[in-house]
Every structure is written in structure tokens, then in C-alpha cells.
């Protein structure tokens, strides 16, 4: 009995908790991708770098706040700085839309041209981020480290295995839930939100109904900026901020969005958690958990790990391939066909 409990604690500690936090980050990222796809109808490859830009501005604000002696301990200062990052990213995205995307939208250009255009934007944003904050690995979580720590948990439960819940993980989850709830409330309950869904659903009829496309697009970019910045900051809080990782996040984020069905917000969330849990579970070494429930003699050699963590991209990729092969429209039918 205690063995099972210990095994469960190990799994919670190394699989469930990290994957939940990571899943929330991916879900926020995938929501941004899926929203742009639904309204503007192209896959935005600059999204990873938008996340990095939002996070970079937030970090600069954190430093400014720290210098001014502002703190909301035990919460990380980054939460206080987040609105600044969102605002800056929203301004950047709306300016980008005016300067770049709008031209192609008016021309009714082929979506693939917009994808190439987004690659150009990606280059510029990537350069901009490096310009602003450099290429160093930055840790900016100055809040309390743990909500539950290993020693405390062991003392309280008397179990051999400890459980640690880092505050960054809880912050991630709470912020993400609040954000997603607000987003769904906005999309389903407000006039502007409904007009966005209508626009995504049937653009011509939306125009006939008097919905202003430029307004819908502007609101979309603002929400995308908020989602991207939040995802970027939460990921950075949980792990660390390194501009290159944000480009690499593009793959799991797109996998999540495609798996859920491009254009479907609910699908993006489900996809985010599916990708995160698969990635963590497949690359986790189960040896320690197995040790608690299996007799010594049965223990296999090695780490009992399906795939080395070096190949975590491969997991998102495999999920993507399986979905593309068997259900190209995604788990939740999106607007892509």
C-alpha cells in the first residue's frame, strides 16, 4: 500500500505536475495560433517569436520594478509586469498588421503567401528580441520557490518519497485558467467576441451583417498578443527565458493546435495538454516509480524510459503525424479542411 502511494507521489512529482504546467503553457500558445488561423486564415510562424518578444518586454519591466523596489512577494514580480508586456506586444502586432499583413488581406492573397510573410516577420521579431535583451539565458522568477516542498511533504505524510510543487507551476496553472476563462467568456458572451466567431465562421455573411473586418482583426491581434505574452512569460517563469527555445516551442504549439483542429479554441487547449502529457510521459524514466510497486527481482535494467529527453520534439511530431494520418481535421473539427 505504501509502495503504491510512494509510486503515485513520484509520478505526480515528475510527470503530472510538470506536464500540467507545461500543458497550460502550450495551450495558451496554441490558442494564439488557432485564433490567428481562424480569423486571418494563415499559420503564423512568427508566433514563437511573439511569445519571446512579450516575455522580453516583461522581463525588462521586471528589472525596472525591481530597481524601483517594487515587489509582490510571494508572487513573482513578472505578474505585475505582464500587462506592460502584453501592451507592448499588442502595439507591435497591430503595427505589424498595418504595415505588413493588411496589404495581403486586401488583395485576398493566397494563405501560403501570408505564411511566407509571417516568416519575414519572424526574422525581424527574432532579431528584435535579441537586440532588446540579448541571447543569454535569463531567470527572472523572484517569487517564493515552493508551495509544497519535499521535506515538508515527507514530514507531513511520512512517505519515503517527497512531493514538490513549485510556485511557478501553480502560478502558471492559475493564470492560464483565469486567462482561458476570460477568453471563452469574451468569445461566447460579448458582442465583439461573437462577431469574431461569426467572422471566423462565414466571412462574407459577417460582412453582410455589418461586422467591421478591420475591427475584428485588430481585436484578434490584441488577444493574440495577450495569449502569446502570457504563454511566453509563464514558460520563462517555469523554466527560464532563452530566445532560442521560443522558436523551438513552435513545433509542440503547432502540433497542439493541429491535433485539436486548427481554428478550434477548445481543441487548442485539449491539444496542448495532450502534447505536454505525452512528451513528459514518453521521456520520463519510470524506474523510480516502478521500484515502489515491483519486487526487486522483477526490476528491469536501465531507466525504464521510452525515449531520451533529447527527442522530446519527436513526441509532438509523432502525435502530429498520427493525427494527420487518421483524422486530418483534428480531434475537434476546426475551420481547416
Amino acid at each position, binding site marked *: 500500500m505504501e509502495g503504491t502511494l510512494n509510486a503515485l507521489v513520484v509520478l505526480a512529482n515528475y510527470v503530472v505536475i510538470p506536464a500540467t504546467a507545461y500543458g497550460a503553457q502550450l495551450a495558451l500558445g496554441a490558442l494564439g495560433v488557432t485564433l490567428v488561423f481562424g480569423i486571418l486564415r*494563415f*499559420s503564423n*510562424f512568427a508566433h514563437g517569436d511573439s511569445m519571446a518578444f512579450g516575455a522580453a518586454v516583461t522581463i525588462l519591466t521586471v528589472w525596472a520594478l525591481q530597481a524601483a523596489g517594487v515587489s509582490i512577494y510571494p508572487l513573482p514580480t513578472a505578474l505585475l509586469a505582464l500587462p506592460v508586456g502584453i501592451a507592448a506586444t499588442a502595439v507591435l502586432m497591430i503595427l505589424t498588421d498595418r504595415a*505588413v499583413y493588411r*496589404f495581403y488581406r486586401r488583395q485576398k492573397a493566397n*494563405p*501560403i*503567401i501570408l*505564411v*511566407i*510573410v509571417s*516568416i*519575414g*516577420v*519572424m*526574422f*525581424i*521579431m*527574432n*532579431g*528584435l528580441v*535579441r*537586440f532588446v535583451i*540579448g541571447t543569454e539565458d535569463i531567470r527572472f522568477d523572484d517569487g517564493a520557490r515552493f508551495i509544497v516542498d519535499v521535506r515538508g511533504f515527507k514530514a507531513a505524510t511520512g512517505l519515503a518519497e517527497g512531493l514538490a510543487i513549485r510556485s511557478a507551476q501553480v502560478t502558471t496553472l492559475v493564470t492560464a485558467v483565469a486567462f482561458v476563462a476570460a477568453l471563452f467568456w469574451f468569445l461566447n458572451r460579448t458582442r465583439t467576441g461573437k462577431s469574431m466567431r461569426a467572422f471566423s465562421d462565414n466571412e462574407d455573411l459577417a460582412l453582410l451583417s455589418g461586422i467591421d473586418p478591420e475591427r475584428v482583426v485588430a481585436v484578434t491581434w490584441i488577444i493574440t498578443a495577450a495569449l502569446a505574452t502570457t504563454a511566453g512569460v509563464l514558460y520563462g517563469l517555469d523554466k527560464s527565458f532563452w530566445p532560442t527555445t521560443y*522558436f*523551438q516551442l*513552435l*513545433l509542440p504549439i*503547432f*502540433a497542439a493546435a*493541429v491535433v485539436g483542429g*486548427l481554428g478550434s479554441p477548445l481543441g487548442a487547449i485539449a491539444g496542448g495538454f495532450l502534447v505536454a502529457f505525452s512528451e513528459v510521459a514518453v521521456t520520463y524514466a519510470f524506474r523510480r516509480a516502478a521500484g515502489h510497486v515491483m519486487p526487486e527481482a522483477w526490476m528491469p535494467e*536501465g531507466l525504464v524510459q*521510452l525515449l*531520451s529527453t*533529447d*527527442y522530446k*520534439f*519527436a513526441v*509532438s*511530431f509523432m502525435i*502530429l*503525424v498520427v493525427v*494527420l*494520418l487518421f483524422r*486530418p481535421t483534428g480531434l475537434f473539427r476546426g475551420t*481547416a479542411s
Partner: protein
Amino acid sequence: MSRVRLRTPVLFLLVAALIVVTGLAQSWNVALTIVNMGLVSAIVALGLNMQWGYAGLFNIGVMGFLALGGLAVVLVAVPPVAEAWAAGGPRTLAGLALAVAALAGAILLRRRMRPGVARGLATAAVIVLGYVLARAVFVPASEAIERVNPAGTGFLGGLGLPVLVAWPLGGVIAAGAAWLIARVALGLRADYLAIATLGIAEIIVAILKHEDWLTRGVKNVVGIPRPVPYEVDLLSDPAFVARAHLWGTDPVTAASILVKLAYAALFLVVLAILLWMAEKALNSPWGRMMRAIRDNETAAEAMGKDVTRRHLQIFVLGAAVCGIAGAMMTTLDGQLTPGAYQPLRFTFLVWVMVVVGGSGSNWGAVLGGFLIWWLWVMVEPIGAWLLGVVTMPLPASSALKLHLLGSAQHMRLITMGLILLLVLRFAPRGLIPER
């Protein structure tokens, strides 16, 4: 009409002038280095142009195909490590064979059994069992290999053949990988192919970085044999030194320039052959059909063209060209550095080359390869100079000035993005538009 005909040679002359100016202003060594990578870039751009320009296939996994070409160089040219082979060579290969067999078995089951829960379970069981078995054979063997003199070798090495053999082989390996991806992702939306290629490229590079038994991973494989003479050998040759003095040049510079010229000659031959073939293909009925499919897929399908099959063909061909270029790149470097493969530089930069040169135009791709590579190299010094001018009024110790000067290298990315956006907006057909 004559203006259109003149345009191509004039543009090429302009790029040549840029390189000559670089040679005069900096050094011929720098200029020749740019020429050599320019030649390789032109070939990669040619390959991507086949996929995107002829057929409209959105491949953003160029980096992966280049890396496979690099792997081919190691597998071909590096001498075998006998000790490592003895430690676990056959067992490693057996492990891989087991994995492939399991996959083949699963596919066979899917074909033979009737759809249903039983089939799903059976295939899953075969895959899982095969995977576990393959790993059980493979992991200890590869670890044994990696333990053999890890600081010096720790990998199987290659076949010890002449490095030039690796160039076509690089093409073949890349083509094989492309075939696998194409089977899955072709026929789906363009963005899905994009994401799939992006993913496979990341995985290929991850394999190169982490499978030490194969590529030494981030420890790099250095000293790959060359297809051209070594500077040291030239310098120890009295005849060469005497001739250098006769030309009135320093022998060390002469040797390094001669080596670079030799590479340039080799690359030029490959580029000429590929360009000739590409031009022939593009202007043949096959090429016209390809473009017809690109311009109107539905109509082509209605006319009885097997669109997916044609796409598969061109995707594999384009990837093969990228693989050849990847092998040439690694040969030129003389080493395989898996950590150096970055998507911005090895995938998206190639896109800039193709779009700027003119999608669908072979000569455009070649021009774009040279021009954008020259820019990529030169933007940094130009950017540093520019920032130096801009920050002139600031005091030397100003933090902002130091930050800006230190950031000159990031001008590269911004410049490339701007160029891409400007060309897409104001000259969407590129410098040398498709005819």
C-alpha cells in the same frame, strides 16, 4: 524583350562586382570564402526552388536535408574505427534492423488484417514489443561504442572512401527521408506539410546531436578528409613555393587561395550540372505539367494528372539536391558540427534566397543564393559600422552604446526579414521572374 534578356546577366554581373569589391576592400580569401558558400547556397536554393517554385510545396525542413548530407560525409569519408565496430557495431545495426522490422510488421498487419479493435491492438503490440526489443539490443551496444576512447573517437566512423562519394550519397539519404515525409504529409493542406517538415528537420538534427555512436554528437567530427590538397602539403612542396614567389605572392596566402579555388572549381561543376538539368527539366513537358499543377491543382486533377504522385517526385528530387549541397557544405567545412544547424540560417535563409531570386526561376535561385549569402556575411560588418556611426555622439562608456555595438550581429536577422518582406511586397516575382 531585350531588357528582359539583359536583366539576368546584368544582375549576375552586379553580384560579381559586389564580391570583387569585397575582395579588393577586405581580402581575396574572404571573397573566395563567400564565393564557395555562395555556390553551395545556390545549389540548396535550386533544390528548394524545385519544391516551392515548380510545385508550390511548402518545405521548411531544408535544414534536415542539409544535415543528412553532412551525415553522409561522415559515413563515407571518415576511416572506420575498428575497435568501436568490435565493441558493438553489428549489435547496434541489429538493434536498428529490429526496429525497422517491427515497423514493417506493423504496416503489414494493418494491410492484412480487417479494420477493428483487434487490428489496432495487434499493431500497437507489435510496435511496442519491437521497440522494447530493439532498444534492449541497441542501447548497450551503442553505449559500448561510445565508451571506446570517447575523447578521440567514441563512434563507429565511416567507410573511409573518397569524400566525393558522399555527395551523391547525401542526395540519396535526403531523398529517402523526403520520401517518408511525403508519404505522410503530401496531399494535405500546405501548412501541414510545412509543420511536418519543420518537425522532421528538428528530429534529424536532434539525432545528429545526440547519437554519439553515429556522429560523435556535439563533440563534432573533425578532420574529415578533403577532395582537394592541404595547405600544409602545398607549402612543403618546393615547386609550389618557388612558383608562388615567381607570382610575387606570399606562399601561405597563395596556398589558401589555391585550395579555395580548387573547391570553387568542384562546386562550380556540380552547380553547372544541376542547373543544366534543372533548366532542361523545367522547360520539358514534365516541367510545364508541374507548373500547371501548381497553378491550378483542381484543373490538373480533373485532366487526369496524378497530382500527389507528381508532388512526391518533385519533393524527393528537391530534397536530393539539398542533400548533395549539405554534403558539399560539410566537405567544405572539413567537419560535422551538429550543434551548428540552426533553422534560421539553414532553412529560412534559403527561403529568402529563393523568394528574392524569383520563385520558379532556376537562375533566380542561383542569383539569390549568391546575393543573400554575400549579404548574410557582410551585414554584420556593415551593421557594426552603421551602429558605430549612429552611436558616435554617445560617450565611449555609455551603456546604451556598448549594448548597441554588441548587438550588431542581430542586424542580420532584421535585415533578412526586411528584405524578404520588401521583395514580397514590391517585387513578389523576385529579381529574375519565372518565364
